[in-house]
């Protein structure tokens, strides 16, 4: 039974990682921007959710407000700071790094330096009893949410007009533009949506992983590992990579607590050697 618990934990963490990595991966796939602010979207989203939760007590409202606010922040960054460096990777990376610092300092200023835990919604307060073990409902809820969002994104990408445009843009933005697709709007939409997904991840993770200064870096690094493993620009890669990293992370922490990160990084190094662009990455 212990194994089932660890597998469930790993999948739950994997789902959170998927919310982060999906945005990172799609933003890169479409615009070739390596968004180092992505971990900050996660942390700031979590903190905004915390404040909303404290004021109103509504978890749903916390999710909505955090996603909307961070999407707005993402839009401003994309429109006014990244667009001018289109396809110029280094300045884009630097700008997103600057914002990483700015958000890290601002959130330390606003929300303080102590780790804070979001109270989980009351409906999921209990736990499911499995033999000798109890498994918290909230983590099962996380898995369900992750699966629903993954399914929704896949459906969106494969079966909607906007999704078709997105795929065309990822394949070749130049040609897509020539075919009359409004690539400029697409860029902003994807950047904002990616930011919103990261913010949702932050709010959803907050009752389990807590929020603290430096969580932005931690989230960013794990998201990097996910896309290095899965490949940039692919939704499938983000999902498979996230599940893999989530499981490795959980088993690592359980069985080799001293070297927790190594159980994640050694397989990453191995995959790099075999496939430098990740399992599902192109070029």
């Amino acid at each position, binding site marked *: 039974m212990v194994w089932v618990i660890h597998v469930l934990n790993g999948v739950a963490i994997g789902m959170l990682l998927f919310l982060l990595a999906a945005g990172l991966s799609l933003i890169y796939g479409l615009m070739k921007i390596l968004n180092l602010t992505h971990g900050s979207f996660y942390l700031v989203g979590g903190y905004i959710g915390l404040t909303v939760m404290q004021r109103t007590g509504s978890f749903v409202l916390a999710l909505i407000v955090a996603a909307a606010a961070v999407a707005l922040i993402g839009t401003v960054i994309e429109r006014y700071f990244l667009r001018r460096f289109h396809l110029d990777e280094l300045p884009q990376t630097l700008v997103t790094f600057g914002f990483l610092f700015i958000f890290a300092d601002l959130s330390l200023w606003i929300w303080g330096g102590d780790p804070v835990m979001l109270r989980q919604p009351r409906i999921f307060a209990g736990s499911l009893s499995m033999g000798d073990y109890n498994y918290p409902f909230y983590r099962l809820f996380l898995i369900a949410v992750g699966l629903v969002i993954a399914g929704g994104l896949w459906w969106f990408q494969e079966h909607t007009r906007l999704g078709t445009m997105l795929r065309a843009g990822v394949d070749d933005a130049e040609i897509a533009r020539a075919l009359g697709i409004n690539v400029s709007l697409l860029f902003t939409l994807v950047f904002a949506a990616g930011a919103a997904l990261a913010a949702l991840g932050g709010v959803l993770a907050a009752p389990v992983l807590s929020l603290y200064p430096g969580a932005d870096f931690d989230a960013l690094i794990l998201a990097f590992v996910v896309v290095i493993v899965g490949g940039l620009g692919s939704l499938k890669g983000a999902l498979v990579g996230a599940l893999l990293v989530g499981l490795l992370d959980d088993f690592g922490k359980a069985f080799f607590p*001293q070297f927790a990160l190594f159980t994640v990084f050694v397989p990453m190094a191995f995959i790099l050697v075999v496939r430098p662009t990740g399992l599902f990455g192109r070029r």
Partner: protein
Amino acid sequence: MTGRVGSFVACVLVLALLLVLPQTMRPYYVGLVTKMLIFALFAMSLDLLLGYAGLASLGHAAFFGVAAYTIALLLLRAGIGGWIALPAALAASTVTGALIAALALRARGSYFLMITFALAQVVWSVAFGWRSFTGGDDGLPGIARPNFGWSLDSTVSFYYFVLAVVGLATLLLAAIVKSPFGRALRGIRESESRMQALGYDVWRYQFVAFVLAAAFAGLAGALYAYFNRFVGTEYLHVIQSAEALIMVILGGAGTLIGPAIGAALIVFLEDYISSLTQHWLLVLGIIYVLVTVLAPRGLVGLVVDYRQRRFEP
């Protein structure tokens, strides 16, 4: 030709200024200039990668920190001093550089950046997590400065020691950059495939550049450990890597003087702003965004642009 004479005169003037400096300044500022020199070396080592080889690394602090920790651990855990510890520190950063290069150089562009970032963060996590050995986030205080026949305990004597080491390292870096090896690196930066077609083993050039950059970063890290008489996990943190990156870009990548100026400016700003407010990170972030938006090719780039505009109206 006048340009070359001019820059030679400028070098002599700067060196003369640096030599008489400690006689005219308060010890606090001598310490600050020492720190500028150390970070100038660190930034120049990164520029070998970014400016000459065209590889943007976000994990350069790994080599800086590994060397610093080697100095500290050898001294505090084994009682081994400068004569052995300094070469050992360089060896440690070189080996770390070779390991990370072997993995990271399988990728290019954004993947390269992510991988150097992730691997450097592994090194950081070891220093952070292995409390019993590395002291965790308390760091390791009490590092005595080495004694190579004369004491380096005073601020001024240590300043001259750093000046000598950084000066020699800069000459070495200048020689590397001017050598056929350095020219080949620039060729690879401009077009990998073309250099490959000309028969250059691109991977080997990049690997050597990476390892050399790691070794020079290690030298800077070792000096910094002695300078502070302390090492901490922040030496290894990605913020340190990012600061080096902005030093290079602020000054101007692809020159040696640019990163040195960038380093001096950032060190000065950090000292000055930290005395006014706690929010150095916020200011650094704003500097990042502004420099990238306003002067993407750095201060050196601005000067070059100005000159060109003057000559071609």
